[in-house]
């Protein structure tokens, strides 16, 4: 039995979920107000920026290790939000970057953030830095920065690999408030242990939608919720009818057979 091509259930399934997602995206862009629940940890961003300003020490934002892809784009959206806050409070935000393309966009974003708050002169060109495109060289660079600048708050948003612990442990050492968010499940435990707030898995994507209020992201998120709801419904339906011989067992059996393909 092979699944070289989709069967009707697959086509229908994907078509329904895609249609819902597209509908919510388009209706959000047409101006419909959509709701996102509060995400724990995000409200702490303001607090972390405020505390850093009180202490008169700078902040650090790392956009993770990925090149230009969906994770780094979301991270940059959050960086822009933090940069605006930093500009409003008149504080410095250091953004070390791992990829040349991300670097170009990050610099532009942070500069614009300071300009939009009416403080273009507060932006230091040296604060957005391209450190290295090598994992450990980058990690060593960020660790050095955290130590030298005695940063008061650190933000780790994006896709991280093994260096997550190196970075967050250094932040812990200098006593910074740390907020992290990553879709990389393997690195979440290390952030959970050493950061004050950690945004887990899917929440990371929701976070950028929550902060930026970008209609496309908001709409997509709501559509994804409906899709997840459908999956949950299928799981529940399939599970409660899973015992062989019970009435309605055919639901579970047929679903399984159709899903498997053939």
């Amino acid at each position: 039995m092979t699944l070289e091509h989709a069967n009707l259930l697959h086509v229908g399934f994907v078509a329904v979920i895609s249609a819902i997602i597209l509908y919510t995206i388009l209706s959000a862009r047409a101006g419909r107000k959509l709701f996102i629940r509060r995400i724990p940890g995000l409200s702490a961003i303001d607090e972390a920026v405020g505390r850093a300003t009180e202490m008169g020490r700078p902040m650090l934002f790392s956009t993770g290790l990925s090149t230009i892809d969906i994770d780094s784009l979301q991270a940059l959206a959050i960086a822009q939000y933090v940069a605006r806050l930093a500009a409003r409070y008149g504080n410095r935000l250091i953004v070390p970057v791992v990829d040349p393309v991300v670097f170009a966009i990050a610099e532009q974003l942070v500069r614009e953030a300071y300009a939009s708050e009416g403080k273009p002169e507060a932006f230091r060109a040296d604060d957005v830095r391209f450190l290295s495109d090598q994992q450990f060289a980058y990690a060593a660079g960020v660790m050095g920065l955290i130590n030298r600048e005695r940063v008061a708050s650190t933000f780790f948003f994006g896709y991280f690999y093994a260096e997550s612990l190196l970075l967050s442990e250094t932040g812990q050492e200098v006593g910074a408030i740390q907020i992290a968010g990553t879709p990389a499940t393997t690195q979440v435990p290390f952030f959970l242990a050493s950061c004050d707030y950690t945004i887990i898995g899917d929440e990371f994507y929701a976070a950028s939608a929550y902060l930026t209020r970008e209609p496309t992201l908001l709409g997509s998120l709501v559509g994804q919720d409906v899709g997840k709801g459908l999956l949950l419904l299928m799981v529940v339906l399939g599970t409660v009818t899973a015992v062989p011989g019970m009435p309605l067992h055919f639901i579970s059996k047929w679903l399984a057979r159709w899903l498997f393909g053939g």
Partner: protein
Amino acid sequence: MMRTRQWAIVLGIYIVAGLVGAVALWWLTHALTPIFRPLKGANLWAAVGGSVAFWIGLMALLHRMPASVKKRVAVVVTFVSGLFYVLEFYLPKKSGIFFWRTHHTNPFSPMLDTVGVATLVITGFTLLLATFNLCLVHGKNIAARRTGYYNSVAFYLAFFAMATFGLWQNHAPTSKLFASKVTVAQVYGYLFNSTYVPLGSTLFSVLAFYMATAAFRAFRVRTAEAGFMMVAAFICMMGQVPLGMWLTHTLPLHGPLSHLRMESMANWVLGVFSMAGLRAVTFGIFVGALAMSLRIWLNLERGAFFEQEL
């Protein structure tokens, strides 16, 4: 009312574009087959030269176009390349583009491996870009005599040594180096096995030390959540090694008490809790990936990268 009409128009555009794209792809596979046959000698060079000239012309033409056209070109290219895989998979095995001509087999399946090799070659060329980029950075360091520029010199030495001896030993592994007894393959072995391999594994193993200090300083049971995490971590750490297995080795191997053995508990944590939790996360990520793919494919994505000036 207005909104409904807008959606209808957008949807209509995509349906039409999809159909046109599908027909174009189908036409490429069938009608153009005779053009894509191997050539020899002068014909080959003419075809290659012609293709390059055609490409340069096309690029020059596009370059003169306003930014909005360029952006649209990028959007169309994205859409068509995505369409290929979507049609290949979601059309049934026996089908034409036109539903009434079902005696055709799926027209896109034969092209799968060609597209695969093409992506492979193109990414091969882009890998050279990353290398080029690295050389550029270190070249600048040396030219400007920045602090630690000798590191960049070391980079260049290592880079050229590895590339040269790699290609050389691949070409003639047994040839001798400068009339000495040392063969090229041996030098390559010193570079690869004795320097590159240990450097890589040692860099990674440094993490073990950081893990130890982090365990001491960062892993604090501040909340109930952290407590749950620590218990699961303890079971998994102990259940994987003979020491942990020895702790509970007096318990029987079978029967109800065997579930309390360390290795059974570790597998239980991995196979029930961890599996279910991560599967729930995976479901969310799959739906998220579908949404993201749709946004990119249909040019709905917004943000710095997608709105930058061209």
